């Protein structure tokens, strides 16, 4: 009997070593490839390797909004200031219960218009359509029946006039030069069907008319840890996956898509919580099955500033939504798993998200359980275990710090010594605490799943200050409201 237990622990031990080393190797390769790519891009800028043309690709910016009366007008104002010549804005009010539409009607010279919208992709019906022409930019406001974020985006696609569209969140701010950078991969390569931008956290950044003027690391651990987490994700793993055309996620906060291809795959799936990921996975599947030459790219120069949750409660809400979205998406596209026709997307990207994102909470829970049991039967080397986890935690912190500094030099950000101290402290905190919050949220995500699976899942918003956006300043102007 004891031999069986020993054999079981031996197998478990091997599994966890392979599991942790697999993850560590992936992160290491990501960080190295990410650093090399960012170094290369920096050198390219130094030697003016850029496409300079008088030609702009026409782009529609779609802003889906649900109960966004606090931020939506400022978002549209910020979009009217973009350094780009040929774009239109389509705001879709998804049956808000607050005054989202009224705020827009009060802020801009909209006129109601009887515009027939061809619903080439399925979405709920429009109630009113308004149009305005502001500074030569066409702005359309579609008020529709409530159908969820994906449904609102589908309406935006149907109402768009241009061959490419950008999806974004109503509480985000696009950096003034971001359109120029996000269309660059499309200019370079005709087969590009989607481009993801870099999402950065705006809570502690100071923006002036869409340009970054000041940036510092916060003491708030909830925001700080997310800043580092975003750095690691956007500056490392997305760059690695981009190398083999294997990115499965383009953040809903900022992405560019070719309209025709998106229409061919039926647009966003309104039945999933992770509609942004589902669309990208669907595009991979569609193009690969039909053997179409395609490319899904990532543009780290195209920056969108987005608010992140600043309380644990909101953070848990957001992560739960992301996790369930991941589950629904991977379940829907399970055929991709290790399937040869999907190439690296099936062998690496899908496998990574399945093992290290979807199953990780259960694997970690199982790990903790076996550690306790092993301790009880005296089958564990406690000092070795502590040492191993310490090394692992320090390694995680060093990795994050590496991604953090890669961003600093490539984006010419000036840091104070105190910011570096904060970054080190937050890296350790992230490695030790954030992981557990994340794991707990994921483990409990399925509670109430059926009831809440299609809600917008909003978090506390604060007013966007176009000329100065920094959490903790100008508190008098803040107009916080719990949208939930």
């Amino acid at each position, binding site marked *: 009997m004891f031999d069986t237990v020993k054999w079981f622990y031996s197998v478990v031990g091997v599994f966890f070593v392979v599991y942790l080393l697999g993850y560590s190797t992936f992160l290491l390769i990501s960080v190295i490839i990410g650093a090399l790519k960012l170094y290369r891009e920096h050198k390219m800028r130094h030697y003016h390797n850029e496409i300079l043309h008088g030609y702009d690709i026409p782009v529609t910016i779609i802003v889906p909004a649900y109960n966004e009366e606090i931020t939506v007008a400022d978002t549209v104002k910020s979009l009217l200031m973009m350094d780009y010549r040929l774009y239109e804005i389509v705001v879709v009010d998804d049956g808000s219960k607050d005054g989202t539409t009224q705020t827009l009607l009060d802020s801009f010279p909209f006129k109601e218009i009887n515009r027939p919208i061809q619903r080439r992709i399925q979405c709920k019906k429009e109630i009113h359509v308004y149009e305005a022409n502001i500074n030569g930019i066409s702005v359309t406001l579609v008020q529709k029946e409530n159908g969820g974020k994906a449904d609102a985006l589908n309406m935006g696609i149907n109402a768009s006039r241009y061959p490419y569209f950008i999806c974004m969140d109503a509480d985000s701010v696009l950096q003034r030069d971001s359109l120029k950078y996000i269309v660059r991969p499309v200019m370079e390569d005709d087969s590009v069907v989607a481009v993801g931008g870099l999402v950065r956290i705006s809570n502690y950044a100071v923006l002036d008319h869409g340009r970054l003027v000041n940036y510092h690391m916060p003491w708030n651990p909830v925001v700080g840890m997310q800043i580092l987490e975003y750095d690691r994700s956007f500056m490392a793993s997305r760059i690695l996956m981009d190398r083999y055309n294997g990115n499965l996620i383009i953040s809903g906060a900022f992405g560019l898509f070719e309209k025709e291809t998106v229409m061919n795959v039926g647009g966003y799936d309104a039945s999933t919580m992770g509609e942004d990921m589902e669309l990208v996975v669907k595009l991979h599947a569609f193009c690969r099955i039909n053997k179409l030459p395609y490319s899904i790219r990532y543009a780290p120069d195209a920056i969108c500033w987005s608010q992140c949750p600043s309380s644990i409660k909101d953070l848990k809400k957001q992560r739960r939504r992301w996790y369930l979205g991941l589950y629904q998406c991977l379940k829907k596209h399970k055929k991709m798993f290790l399937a040869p026709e999907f190439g690296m997307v099936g062998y690496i990207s899908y496998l990574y998200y399945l093992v290290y994102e979807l199953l990780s909470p259960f694997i970690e829970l199982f790990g903790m359980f076996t550690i306790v049991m092993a301790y009880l039967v005296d089958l564990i080397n406690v000092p070795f275990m502590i040492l191993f986890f310490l090394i692992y935690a320090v*390694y995680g912190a060093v990795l994050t710090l590496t991604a953090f500094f890669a961003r600093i*030099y490539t984006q010419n950000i000036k840091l104070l010594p105190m910011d570096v101290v904060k970054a080190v402290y937050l890296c350790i905190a992230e490695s030790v605490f954030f992981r557990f919050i994340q794991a707990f949220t994921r483990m409990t995500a399925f509670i109430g799943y059926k009831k809440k699976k299609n809600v917008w899942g909003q978090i506390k918003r604060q007013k966007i200050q176009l000329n100065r956006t920094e959490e903790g300043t100008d508190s008098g102007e803040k107009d916080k409201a719990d949208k939930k």
Partner: protein
Amino acid sequence: MHVLDLKPEKILYIYMASCIAVLLFNILYIFIDKYKAKTLEKNSLEYLDLIKEQLARVENGLEPEELHLKLLNRKLRRPEKLRAYEYSVAEAARQAAPDIMKLYFEKVRPVFLSLTDTYERRDEIEQAYFVSLIEKFGIDKGRQSFDGIIEFLVRMSISKDVYVRENSLQALFSIGNAEAVLSAWQKMEANQRYHSRRLLAEGLLRFTGDKLELSRILFQRRKDFNISLALPVFQFIRRYTGEFQQEMLELMQRSTEDKELRLEAVRYLRRYPYAPAREALQKFIWMRDYIDWEFAAMAAMTLSEYPGDDTVECLKEGLHATNWYVRHNCAAALTQGLRIPKAELYEVYNGKDRYAREILQYMEQKADLEQEKMELV
């Protein structure tokens, strides 16, 4: 051997050491970058006095000094020096007459010719930079013979790096040699290295030589090229010359031609209306069971340039089309293109077809809205 014998903690130590190396590199690079920026600022004009001296010689009808050419030949092999030279030239050009600068670059051409060997072996970023300077300095501008630099640019036009390709094509367009452009097109075709169609079409418009000759040469050889290379030629021709109306009409009617090229021909006939095309364009709309609705939709927009009762009747018929885009474009052509008054569209506004009515109403409102271009307060 058991997997645990591999000492996983040691692997993690190695990983951590690699990571720390990258981290140190990043931190070090922040400082190196700052230092480099300062050095470049300090050295950016290091060639200015030398260039000014040579410009003075050229202005006086003398050749640049041999020593100057030798120095450039030696120093410009380093990209950082090439940058300093670029800045110095920009500064010198502010004070010198353009024809003197042109003459100066004709004299330093051998230096650039010799540098092509060096930069052909460099990484793509440096290659792209070097090639961009050939265009910027106008080296070989107007040259008709294929000797050295043009051949180098044609070779670079099939680089796997998009920036090298783009810069070398831009340099070829700026030289203005139609045969050289054709040669680049043939090389891309032979090597199946296809550049962005948008960039090619835009680039052709920047051709500094005889554009008409270029359009004729490329149009004649269009069948030799894949659609990725042929379509930009058509787009260039559409935006440049109305000389090809007859050819475009024939091409539009020939069903064996590529669909994208035929659609481009329809667009061409919109920009350069051609009376014999009228009937063929109307036929696309009268054909109710569309084999391909895109021809009907495109023809509707094109017909806005062919006024007449027959066109109005045809577009009114198109308002009842089953395809949304055909209806949309017919309405746009009637209201915005031909500006047909509401009274003349009475039977549509009061007819039974709700879709036709709605699209016309929308187009009318839209036209009103476009007139009220309001400024954001």
